[in-house]
């Protein structure tokens, strides 16, 4: 009997023009969203490729120059232009340290519009001064991008609610409910079946639209089946959560209008209010210390260290006897740089506490927010999508750490050679340190996000059972 009812429900839906409109509308929105994401990722990768090509070209030119200088085919340039001088290589031919886009980067802009995706650390300069901010119109950042994450987090629940808010109430209002229930059928099974059917239809539309959009924009989701499955799973659970909320509200037995209003209120609370409240409490309870104060402390520590620069170099040699000039009769051509390195090492050491304090406060705020994300399915979905796209704050912090680590590698390639008063040779270009990006060490939030969403599912199911037990059958039936 139940099968029968569901079958007719299916036929009913098939003939409903709303399903068709929904399909076209959602497909259009998804294609637009993925196109926006694709454009951003393409720009990002094109810039990185261009930078790398420029680097290779410069390397080749410098190697050729060194070659002709060594063969005396060219007059020697001024010292500050000489490609044989290691400081010129370390300063003028930096490597490109890039953060390549993850295969599914198109799905969520995340923090990618705030930061640059590559840096060119040089032999001299403090890690703190490396700029990562991207040039952009802040209005665009304020409004955010129309990406797949936006479609899923904000719009999808509204589609679900529009598709299901009156499953029970409309039957009641048109009087069909009494007829249906005259059949040997359980109200709850029937209602659940109806919603399940709608869930399957909507989920199929959503999944098909997403996969279709990814395919037409050449995103290799088949090659990244693991990530694609995770994406589909996360979105499906989110859709299911909203269907269950709708089921719960329908069970209360109110009118269609009242259901619609209640469901919208739930949406506003989960998608708009809770995230903004948590974000605000994070700023109030764990305020990030002022960057402006940090600048001051940093400059004070630096000025103090600079005053003692001469002493510093002596101490530095005491601590690094391996670097002390062996042949004191010969002038080291890099002596100015070496003094600078020593001073900057000391400066970095003395300002480290300032930076550490700052980072600790930042971490506290972020871990507070990370814990509170379990209060809203919308935050969990956002977090999970950013995780899959590789655009979460954790990814950018990790990239910054990679750049800072590489800056150190780069410097330490040159320092011993400079102390030895060596020169750059054409064949040395092949042995310069290189960086390859990997996000493997970023701890994944995905499993926790998925668990969190499943927890919300369980909660809603428990809520439905409670309502079912409390509510009398007559109450549901009464119009």
């Amino acid at each position, binding site marked *: 009997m139940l099968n029968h009812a569901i079958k007719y429900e299916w036929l009913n839906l098939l003939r409903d023009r709303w399903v068709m409109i929904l399909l076209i509308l959602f497909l259009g929105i998804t294609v*637009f969203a993925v196109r926006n994401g694709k*454009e951003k990722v393409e720009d990002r990768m094109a*810039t990185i490729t261009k930078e790398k090509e420029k680097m290779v070209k410069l390397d080749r030119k410098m190697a050729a120059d060194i070659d002709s200088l060594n063969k005396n085919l060219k007059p020697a340039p001024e010292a500050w232009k000489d490609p044989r001088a290691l400081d010129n290589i370390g300063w003028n031919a930096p490597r490109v340290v890039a953060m390549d886009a993850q295969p599914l980067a198109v799905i969520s802009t995340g*923090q990618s519009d*705030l*930061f*640059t995706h590559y840096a060119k650390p040089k032999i001299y300069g403090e890690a703190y001064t490396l*700029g990562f*901010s*991207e*040039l*952009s*119109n*802040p*209005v*665009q*950042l*304020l*409004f*955010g*991008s*129309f990406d797949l994450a*936006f479609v899923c987090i*904000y719009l999808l629940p*509204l589609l679900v609610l529009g598709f299901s808010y*009156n499953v029970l109430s409309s039957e009641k209002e048109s009087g069909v409910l009494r007829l249906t229930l005259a059949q040997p059928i359980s109200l709850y099974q029937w209602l659940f079946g109806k919603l399940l059917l709608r869930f399957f239809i909507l989920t199929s539309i959503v999944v098909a639209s997403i996969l279709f959009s990814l395919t037409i924009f050449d995103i290799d989701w088949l090659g990244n089946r693991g990530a694609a499955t995770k994406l589909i799973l996360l979105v499906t659970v989110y859709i299911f959560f909203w269907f269950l909320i709708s089921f719960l509200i329908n069970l209360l037995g109110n009118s*269609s*209008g009242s259901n*619609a*209003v209640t469901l*919208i209120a739930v949406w506003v609370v989960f998608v*708009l*209010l809770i*995230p*903004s*409240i*948590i*974000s*605000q409490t*994070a*700023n*109030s309870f764990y*305020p*990030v210390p*002022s*960057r*402006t*104060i940090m*600048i*001051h402390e940093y400059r004070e520590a630096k*000025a103090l260290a600079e005053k003692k620069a001469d002493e510093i170099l002596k101490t530095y040699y005491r601590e690094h006897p391996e670097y002390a000039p062996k042949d004191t009769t010969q002038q080291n051509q890099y002596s100015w740089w070496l003094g600078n390195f020593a001073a900057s090492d000391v400066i970095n050491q003395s300002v480290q506490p300032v930076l550490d304090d700052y980072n600790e406060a*930042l971490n506290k*705020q972020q871990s507070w*927010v990370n814990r509170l994300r379990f209060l809203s399915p919308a*935050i969990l979905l*956002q*977090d999970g999508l*950013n995780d899959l796209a590789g655009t*979460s*704050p954790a990814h950018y912090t990790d990239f910054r750490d990679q750049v800072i680590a590489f800056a150190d590698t780069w410097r330490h390639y040159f320092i011993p050679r400079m102390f030895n008063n060596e020169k750059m040779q054409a064949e040395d270009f092949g042995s310069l340190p290189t960086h390859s990006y990997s996000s493997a060490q970023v701890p994944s939030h995905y499993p926790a996000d998925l668990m969190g969403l499943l927890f919300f599912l369980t909660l809603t199911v428990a809520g439905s059972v409670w309502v079912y037990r409390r509510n009398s059958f007559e109450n549901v039936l009464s119009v």
Partner: protein
Amino acid sequence: MILKIALKELKEIVREGRFRITAITLFALLLAALFVSKSYYTSVNAQHSEAKKNARSEWVEQGQKNPHSAAHYGTYAFKPKYPLSLIDNGVDKYTGVSIYLEAHKRNEAQYAAAQDQTALSRFGDLTPDFVLIFIVPLFIILIGFNAFTRERESGTLRLLKSQGVSTWKLTMGKWLGLFLPVLLIAIPVYVLAALFLANIKDYGQFSLWALTLLFGVYLIYYAVFINITLFVSSLFKKSNVAFVTLLGIWMVSCLAMPKISTAIADKLYPYPTQVEFEEQIAVDKKKGLDGHNPWNTEAKKLEEETLKKYGVDSVQQLPFNWDGFLMQEGEKHTADIYFKHYQLLKDTYVNQTNVYRSTAALSPFLPTRFLSMAICRTDYTSHWDFANAAENYRIELVGKMNGDMAANSKYGDWDYLADDKLWSSVPDFQYEPASYTTVIRQNTSNLITLLAWLLLSFAALYGAVTKMKTI
């Protein structure tokens, strides 16, 4: 008659549980937002004045130095926070708070708060503007979607007609019935905000007039939403359909349109990346005159000209330090290069702004958002204005340093040292924001669009209700 209908509507709305719950929630949210914003504002302001003081003392107490080294050491300009930012924080979260001012280089403002926050902050913060611009329209829809459909569904619309009530009077009554509850929430918030702002110690920049203007803009915006709500309610037979339609309108104008406009603006007038921008500047710098590089052809030319002008044959014989003079000439040249490139950037930004201004015809949210930020001085234009003022100060500061070096030292004498006297002779950075007349002038188009929305939505409502069927 209109008033009677309005009072009846009001009574009906107030009696409904739905209204009471949402109104109380809304009011609580606004209060919370106001309090949190106030404490945020106070702490940021305290930080700002401390940082300002620090930067000044660092500069004045930097000890004996060559003036050009002092220009390299530089100082910071900090962006002030204005009292009304506690109503609307605008783009402040996404723009840097401090600009490093040094010789040879114009720096971008650094340390945007958003960069230090988690991705959560991209959902938006619970600030008064979030409630006032996003949530209040939703509240209007919630209490008004069934204004006409309810009468139609229960058959009372026909009764009313038979009583000889003109539809227009009925509409005006219902209009007031929606506007009064909104006013009931907006007025206490306005009064509270005014009290808060008046009690902030350094409220030098605050004017009650601006706050009133801000609330005026919000009220026009609410009127537009009331018109739309009643218009839709008069079109449909069923409350459900009216509700879903209105929700769709809200979603498109408040959520989707800003993002769609951004996608269009970005596609048509893309910003250069930070590195591209810097490289374009570097290319110009290379071609031009570089203060640190006297071998450069243009510097050579300048040298010849100067020598001829003073009738001497070497730079040592000049009555001033050639190094200082040359560096200042180089500084002027770089400043021109920066000016050129920032002007190009500004053109892109103006073009993007124009995209938003044209899409504002599709969403009353957009002109309101821009007006609100502009009045609160938290829009992008205010940021540009500050950055330009900081750049002018930088040019002045570096010029003074190079000038002192040229006048008081000899060529090649890099051991010349200046002291606090010179440092403190440079006035502290003071920034006066643009006047409100300028702000209004910059936003005339937004104001016109918003007023057009008001008039057209009124006209649409009038047209719809006069043709309205009772069944």
